[in-house]
């Protein structure tokens, strides 16, 4: 590094835009490297996008054609059959509704508990902060394990209780650290001085000044929590026994993996043939239907992800 620094000095005054500069110096190797890079990028795009695209076209295609390998780029033998069945199925709706409730209530609790704590821990005059941080960080490496957790939840009456989806997961230490780093680095200290002069306590300073300036981090953290709740399968598997309370992911498991009979009466595992093919179409449709909310909001919030992860990376 030492010698490199010396050279920066030497070339530091050369104020040429980077792109032009690079183009001037292209060697044959550079061309080869460029071509290889573009091929690799194209490969990555196809490898990641194609499976998702295939699910979409398979969900509206004739399954015989899908299984014969005739559906590759566009749907063939167009049919809404899968989606019609899904719309007519109570289990999906039940799971969907449950998951929406669990996700929204859960995320709200997450934010209400995590953000004030992250703010408090970002204040240097908070004397307990090192101790409290240690208290939180330890839990990233040590935990009680499945059975002690299960027995504790049982004592607390959380077994087969919908609160198990929203209460125990109230704080995610990783998200807390991200939010704390944001408050530390992005909120100017002068604001606090001004607030103090105006006689604002920490509560009002946080609510009236810090929060309105922190919409980016609230969005990122909120989204992390929301996705976590939406995709939560484990909690339903371990702690919920009643069908009415099952979240979407458990319903999906039953339909997609356990192959349990669908409303259309076609899901038996043994007899392949016609019934199994229709079951497959339903499966492709269910994959889309359950992932759709995410696919719809994803493009709008994607730009925040870089920010969120980078903020977390600073002091993670």
């Amino acid at each position, binding site marked *: 590094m030492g010698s490199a620094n010396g050279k*920066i000095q030497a070339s530091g005054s050369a104020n040429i835009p980077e792109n032009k500069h690079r183009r001037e110096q292209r060697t044959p*190797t550079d061309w080869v490297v460029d071509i290889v890079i573009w091929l690799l990028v194209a490969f990555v795009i196809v490898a990641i996008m194609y499976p998702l695209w295939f699910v979409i076209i398979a969900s509206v295609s004739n399954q015989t054609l899908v299984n014969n390998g005739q559906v590759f780029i566009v749907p063939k033998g167009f049919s809404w059959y899968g989606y019609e069945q899904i719309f007519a199925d109570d289990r999906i709706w039940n799971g969907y509704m449950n998951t929406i409730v669990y996700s929204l209530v859960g995320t709200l609790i997450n934010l209400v508990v995590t953000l004030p*704590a992250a703010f408090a821990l970002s204040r240097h005059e908070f004397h307990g902060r090192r101790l409290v941080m240690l208290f939180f960080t330890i839990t990233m490496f*040590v935990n009680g394990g499945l059975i002690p957790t299960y027995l504790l939840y049982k004592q607390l009456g959380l077994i087969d209780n919908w609160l198990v989806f929203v209460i125990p997961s109230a704080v995610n230490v990783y998200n807390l650290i991200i939010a704390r780093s944001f408050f530390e680095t992005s909120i100017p200290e002068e604001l606090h001085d001004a607030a103090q002069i105006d006689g604002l306590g920490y509560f009002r300073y946080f609510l009236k000044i810090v929060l309105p300036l922190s919409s980016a981090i609230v969005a990122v953290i909120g989204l992390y929590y929301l996705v976590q709740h939406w995709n939560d399968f484990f909690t339903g598997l371990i702690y919920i026994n009643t069908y009415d309370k099952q979240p979407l992911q458990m319903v999906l498991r039953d339909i997609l993996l356990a192959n349990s009979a669908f409303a259309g009466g076609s899901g038996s595992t043994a007899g392949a043939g016609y019934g199994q093919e229709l079951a497959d179409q339903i499966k492709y449709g269910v994959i889309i239907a359950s992932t759709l909310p995410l696919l719809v909001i994803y493009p709008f919030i*994607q730009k925040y992800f870089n920010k969120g992860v980078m903020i977390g990376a600073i002091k993670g």
Partner: protein
Amino acid sequence: MAPRKLGFIGTVKRYWQLWAMALPAIVFVAIFNYGPMYGIQLAFREFDFTKGLTGGEWVGLKYFKQFFDSPLFGTLMANTVRISLWTLVMGFIFPIILALLINQIRSSKVKGFVQTITYLPHFISTVVIVSMINLFLKPDAGVLTRVLGVIGIQSDNFMGDPNLFTPIYWITEVWQHVGWNSIIYLAALSSVDTALYEAAKIDGAGRLQLIRYVDLPAIMPTCGVLLILNMGNVLNVGFEKVFLMQNTLNLDASEVISTYTYKIGILQSQFSYSTAIGLFNMLINFAFLVIANQISRKVSNSGIF
């Protein structure tokens, strides 16, 4: 400015609002994270249904011995370590390669497009991912089965073949998380001083040399820390995905410590035995973490503690 010598009680009184804001989080973590830790003593006790979590007789290391002597011990350890290490190494290398690759794209629009696409699978639920794997790898008819057949990789039943469980696991794991995990390296790369590139080019460095001598050293510290953090999870293979991918045919290769803990703990109610296995798992994790940290400190002078 605040007076210097307030003492602990004094500062709590003065900054009670900050304590009040942190309190809910502290309470939740105390109950739901530390509560179960208190229950770890179950690993050394005979669980008694009538006396609850901590009422049973002390039995010392009985349940640990039972686990070490169990015929399943070898298989479980081998499966867990095999799946973990493959996922660890591949899940570590590919995001770095992808970040270096994305960093080479000069058009910011294309860059953004590639990033958007590669992050997307990270947000899909495990249940959906596993069902996609099942559908794509269906014997004969699956779309991936066909493609693989064309390039000469054949199997009667991919999901039922114990030898293929680990590759399917780590490849799909990389597919799902490679983009997301590359973000942190991209962050490190974006902070490289552009003058460093200029300097290297004046020295006659080509594109590959720039990657080798500027980009790679720039992300090394990040690599170190991430590797350490991941090492701590070597025995912690994600329960959900393995559990969902398991079937009776591949069980020899797919039963891992976490799925076994679930089966004997939750399904068979052998609470003490299951707790002991969980604790053993955590201790090994911790050992891996410490070892990796020591190595990283010696080699790259960066560690997490």
